[in-house]
């Protein structure tokens, strides 16, 4: 280990602390504070008022009033979530739909990222551009566009009919299949980009070395390329899975009435039932469910940066 370079411990200046402080401040203002508000609402009760729950805090009324409010908190809303099967079914169904979508995205995204990383150097910026291009139009509009493609008299059915592949239009819209299509389409770039980054970094001489040692190219792909792109695969899958679990727009626009996803449940609780406390409790539990993959993802990122 004599040739190893050991970096000196970083000494932080005021500027350094500020630099580190900014993201924490950001998290505090835009994540922690709203979360605490939601958490507080989830412990409150519905009321016919504006806002529609009680207690509400007014800092002007002094500490005693706030303390009185705190004593009114209850976990009743959380208990309610366990009583009605709708909620756990929504959570479970969301996780399953997100999981299947993530797998499908990986199956489609891996060849795309691989092809991009293997394409001539001069072509790569263009290909990257094409992957990012959809972000230039609104997400909502792109999901709407899929309605036009998937509906019974839509583009896809017209194409299949005219090719004679089917004799009757397929019902895709308002089914879970449409939700899968929507999620795969919308989140594909989030998987392709990190995967491409890790595949592009892969040293081509490793594959040559494997081949030189008697390993045919298809086997070298499994023995070398796949394991070395695993960090990219994991990062990409988390980036698809985590937002997909809480997805609302796609199941709402493309899914059917029987498509159960927690985002939809939360929305109807909030807007249809005007039950802010229960919908807040739904949101808090969703966050708790997602904390597991988020922590795993963070660990993975940490390990990756340590290895480099």
């Amino acid at each position, binding site marked *: *280990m*004599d*040739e*190893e370079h050991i970096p000196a411990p970083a000494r932080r200046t005021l500027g350094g602390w500020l630099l580190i402080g900014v993201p924490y401040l950001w998290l505090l203002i835009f994540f922690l504070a709203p979360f605490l508000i939601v958490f507080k609402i989830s412990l409150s009760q519905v009321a016919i008022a504006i806002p529609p729950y009680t207690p509400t805090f007014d800092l002007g009324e002094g500490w005693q009033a706030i303390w009185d409010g705190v004593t009114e908190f209850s976990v009743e809303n959380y208990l309610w979530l366990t009583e009605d099967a709708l909620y756990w079914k929504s959570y479970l169904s969301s996780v399953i739909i997100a999981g299947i979508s993530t797998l499908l995205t990986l199956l489609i995204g891996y060849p795309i990222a691989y092809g991009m990383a293997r394409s001539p150097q001069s072509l790569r910026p263009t290909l990257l551009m094409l992957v990012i291009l959809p972000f230039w139009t609104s997400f909502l509009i792109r999901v709407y566009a899929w309605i036009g493609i998937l509906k019974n008299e839509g583009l896809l059915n017209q194409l299949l009919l005219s090719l004679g592949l089917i004799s009757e239009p397929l019902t895709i819209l308002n089914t879970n299949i449409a939700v899968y299509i929507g999620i795969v389409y919308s989140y594909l770039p989030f998987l392709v980009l990190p995967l491409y980054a890790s595949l592009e970094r892969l*040293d081509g*001489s*490793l594959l*040559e*070395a*494997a*081949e*030189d*040692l*008697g*390993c*045919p*190219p298809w*086997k070298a792909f499994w*023995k*070398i390329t796949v*394991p*070395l792109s695993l960090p990219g695969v994991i990062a990409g899958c988390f980036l698809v899975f985590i937002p997909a679990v809480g997805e609302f727009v796609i199941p709402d626009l493309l899914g059917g009435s029987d498509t159960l996803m927690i985002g939809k449940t939360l929305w109807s609780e909030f807007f249809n039932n005007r039950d802010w406390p229960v919908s807040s409790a739904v949101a808090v539990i969703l966050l708790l469910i997602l904390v597991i993959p988020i922590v795993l993802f963070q660990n993975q990122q940490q390990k990756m940066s340590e*290895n480099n």
Partner: protein
Amino acid sequence: MPWEDPDQAPFIEFRNVTKKFGDFTAVKNLSLKIYKREFFALLGGSGCGKTTLMRMLAGFETPTSGQIFLDGQDLAGIPPFKRPSNMMFQSYALFPHMSVEKNIAFGLKQDKMAAADIEARVAEMLRLTKLEQFAKRKPHQLSGGQRQRVALARSLAKQPKVLLLDEPLGALDRKLREETQFELMAIQEDLKVTFLIVTHDQEEAMTVADRIAVMDKGELVQVATPAEIYESPNSKFVADFIGDVNLIEAKVTEKSDAGTRLTAAHDGFLIDSDQVTEAAVGDTVWFAIRPEKIRVTHGQSGPDAVNRIGGSVWDIAYLGGVSIIHSKTAAENVFRATFANISRIVEDPITWDDQVVFTFDRSAGVILAG
């Protein structure tokens, strides 16, 4: 020596091999024979086509024309993973996600070898390359020298017919490089495998190789033993490329069966050589003489002196074991002579601006065509 025996079949043969990348010709109509158990070095400057030549043998590049034979077999159309050669890559190309022993075992597993045999061979390779205590480490936990040895062990594990080494020691520091050169020679002696090494370092090639092929711009310039290359270079390029040399432009003034007389083009001094040259009287040639074959003494050189070059000392480089004296002639040409520092204390040392003469024997230099 096998290369002197016309009946000996070559083990590796390049026959009129050309490789083009687009319009650029990296290897030009090259023919070369390498014999079994040779330690053969390809030597040349950066970009002269050494790696390309080796990669064609390994199967990573296809010759544009010509044939390559290994042990009598035409290699055309055989993919790299079926060739009986193994390569040690310039970058080592160790698999970062595998431990040292897994790296070494990788090639053996491809052959569907029994697990116990693999284990035994890996242990043997670890011992050979003195890596036993690093078996479980990952490549990024090793120093440069250790990585180099893993790469060597991995490429030797399959007992290839030929081991190809592309600048294997390029990333090591000088001392480690020299040690490793001797280790490589010992391993080659031990395993009796044919080694083909690519290097741009002439000292390395001279140290390890039985024969050296000097390459320039995709062509072979000279193929010979290190001593022949050094003492009898066949061209100005080789003389200049290998070691230090004084190159003197001169005209052939007399020729006989006993030797040749030259007149230096710029300083007019006379050179007598016992070499019988093909150049005609009046031709311009180059006289190449190594600095260590020149004697330096205080003194002046007369007008008709033969094999004596007068000048004043312009620079002295003391290197410990030897010193190099640079002297300038009247026509401002610089000649270099080296001498061994045999004594610790010298009575009358040569120093800056001294008048000195360089003298040499009739057999000390080589006459090369212009």
